[in-house]
């Protein structure tokens, strides 16, 4: 739930999603679910030379399991809070 919780705070912000097939897609994060499936809007493919067909695509649904990285603006992350949140998550896990 930590990452789900984390990504929820990135909604409506611009992120770059790097997929496991090396495709890099920049777009506005519209939605995320507990599987970390992502919905992107207004996308541009950063390496569209390799994937020209993406030029015609405006929005995407990305299955979470195909994501390698999500790049985001560091300003949109509260690191201290994230540390606390991960501690909390660890506490919950340990408590079970």
């Amino acid at each position, binding site marked *: 739930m930590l990452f*789900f*919780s984390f990504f*929820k705070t990135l909604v409506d912000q611009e992120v770059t999603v790097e997929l496991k097939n090396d495709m890099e897609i920049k777009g506005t994060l519209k*939605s995320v679910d507990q599987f970390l499936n992502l919905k992107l809007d207004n996308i541009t493919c950063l390496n569209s030379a390799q994937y020209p067909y993406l030029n015609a695509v405006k929005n995407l649904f990305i299955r979470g399991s195909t994501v390698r990285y999500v790049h985001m603006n560091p300003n949109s992350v509260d690191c201290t*809070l994230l540390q*606390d949140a991960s*501690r909390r998550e660890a506490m919950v896990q340990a408590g079970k």
Partner: protein
Amino acid sequence: MSFFGFDPTGPPNSRGKNGGEDNEVYDFENTYDGLGEIEEDDAFNDETFNTNVNEIKKDYDFGQGSNTKQQYQQASIPAPTSISYAQAAVSGPVNDDEFMQDLWGSSNTPSLQQEDSKQERKILSLEEIEAQLTAIDQGQQQQQQFPPQLYGIPGMIPPPPQFGGYMMPGFMPPQYGFPAGMIPQQIPIQQQQQQNNQPPQQEQPLPQEQVQPQPEIKQEAEESVLVEVNPASIVSPKQTAPKPVTHKVDLSNFPVLGSKEAVQQQQLHQHQLQLQAQLNEQQQQQQQQQHSHHHHHHRQPSVELTPEQQEKAARRQEKVSRIMKYSGIMNPKDKDFVTRFQLSQIVTDDPYNEDFYAQVFKVIHPKVNGVPPSSNQSGSVASGGESQQNNSIAQAYLDHSGHRLGGRYKRADVALQRMQQQVQKAVTVAKERPKLTQFAKEGALGKISFSSGKKPRQQLEIISKAAERQKEQNETKKKEGTKRYSKKDILSILENIISELMNVESESRTSTEVDTTKLWESLKVLKQPSSSGDEESEVNPFIQCLNYNKMLKILSRLFKFLTREQILTITTLIMSNLENLSVIKYGSYTTYSDNKIPEKINKLVEAYSLTFTKILMNSVLDFKFNEISGLLYILNGHNNSAFISTTKIGLSILTTLLSRAELIIGEGQISATDLSEWSSCYDELFTSLESRIAAIFPPNFDKIDDGSSKENYIWQFLATLSLGGKLSHQRIIVDEVRDEIFSVMNRVKSIDNSDLQNLYKKQNLLNNLNMYLVVMGLVADENEIKELQQ
């Protein structure tokens, strides 16, 4: 031309025709004669001919072109050049029966219908057909191009399998029994089917026997115009429907001339009349659809639409049909179920624990998300009603899932309400659900472990409990002597502090009374007394923790939950252990041969001045005068004050204590004993500092302090020290730092007044220096130091 699949073993006349050199004109009679004999004992004759075979004579109009359809073919296909489909058709099949059967299929229609159809059956000649054709105006023809399946034919059964091979492109198994108007969502599906069906059929190689009809059937859209000539469909409307305008021809009837169709036709017409009103609305749209589908096949260009419009409509229609492809697959109940299921995975009755980051983030950075803080605040005040909390979850769900419902004015409220109910339901269900993570099924060899969205299946189960216990045992063993803490121990203690702190914090959200005993115990302040100079690993763990940035960051949060006494205890501990702090221990330039403090320590010092110094300053405000003098006494007694004064943090601690004491003295409510105690304490401190005061200036101070920063901790300290001292003290101080004062004055003078860029430095230098000089009634300007004018 083997495409037409004549049988090479067939009669020679039919074979020779594609030889190319064979230009002989075929006479139908030559090829046909003798082959048209009807086998009177054929069991399927009834269905094939729709009548008693005895009534079928040779003059049944095949004479003019083998069958009516062939006639339209000739009419519709531009002047055949070499060998037309029609010619091929004429000379095609050897066995008429076979052909007929292939064409019509073997229908299982009850004979009753056949009898009905007999009455309607009327053979039209080519002339009649053409007359009919021309009589139909164009607009009507376009109407006739509607996808046939749009007119549901009640009770019609799907075509028998053998139809599949040469099903007309336009021919669809009708969607039985529903008036099109009542099942709007099926239309796109049908449409889709049609789309799917078309291309393969067009390219499908035709089976050999189906020689004659194929070319015609392949004509797809052209035929949709010509369907009208179907005898049954033309004749019957005249009986059943007086107005030919309302008469739609169903393409599905086209290849099937049999009795069944005649009856269905009749039913269809009646039905169409009933449906006419319903369909009127849809016709427009369907017409467009039809255009889009047969656009390229149109022989007659559309009258109403320009090509661009058609193109546009076609594109739009294609898009719509693509989008609508799966619409209506799930009914509202299904959707509800899925939503609830998804929610039950996400929803939690304790969002602060499980959705900690997002919830707190929204509170801390309300604007970043663009979400009004008020809507989130309801969740942040955890004491608020549960329904309110659920509301926020539902709201968040709608917000974040990009749910369409959210944007639709009135419906949004309804959707939100329903979502709330679902959330409520999901929460209760989630609570009731047993929290099993493993399940041993009877007879199973292993255990089934569950995973959920919240708690994904763990790949590795690390046994931490046992290790922890072992560690505890080790700790208890060592307890006799002084315990040595490794870095790992300190870090785990630190983590424990943070966990306890977070527990306390989350507790404080729900209730005002918070139990902080566990937090206090976790600090281990009283665990192991130590004082400056002890071996590093044997120092009190809390002091060791203070060497980590992590600890400094939580200090302010931590101090919120501590009582005044606890803070005083901690401060006392710190004072007695100052030299055990890394910032002090390694923070003095004197310990380095090159007089340079390492970068790492400098960073820590930086962190200290941002956190620790401020917290100490705040805490000291609560301390009583005698407590402060006690702290100073401890500081001086346990540490080498001269050494501490050479560090930035040490100096600022001294400044904090001294200035606070001076402020309290200034208030004038200090008892004489306290004052004398203080002055003895001050004397002691001064004695240890005496003759080393100049050392508080780091080497190359003139180069470091060029006035670019407002940093003035050294002058601040000197000011405070002078303030507390008598005149004799002040003189000593001035004597010791005279060089530095003049060095500053020189720097001030070196900055020219015309150098506007550096003028601020000059001002900074003077301000800092004056902070100290003012205490002694002096003031410095850019030229000289003079007595302060009262």
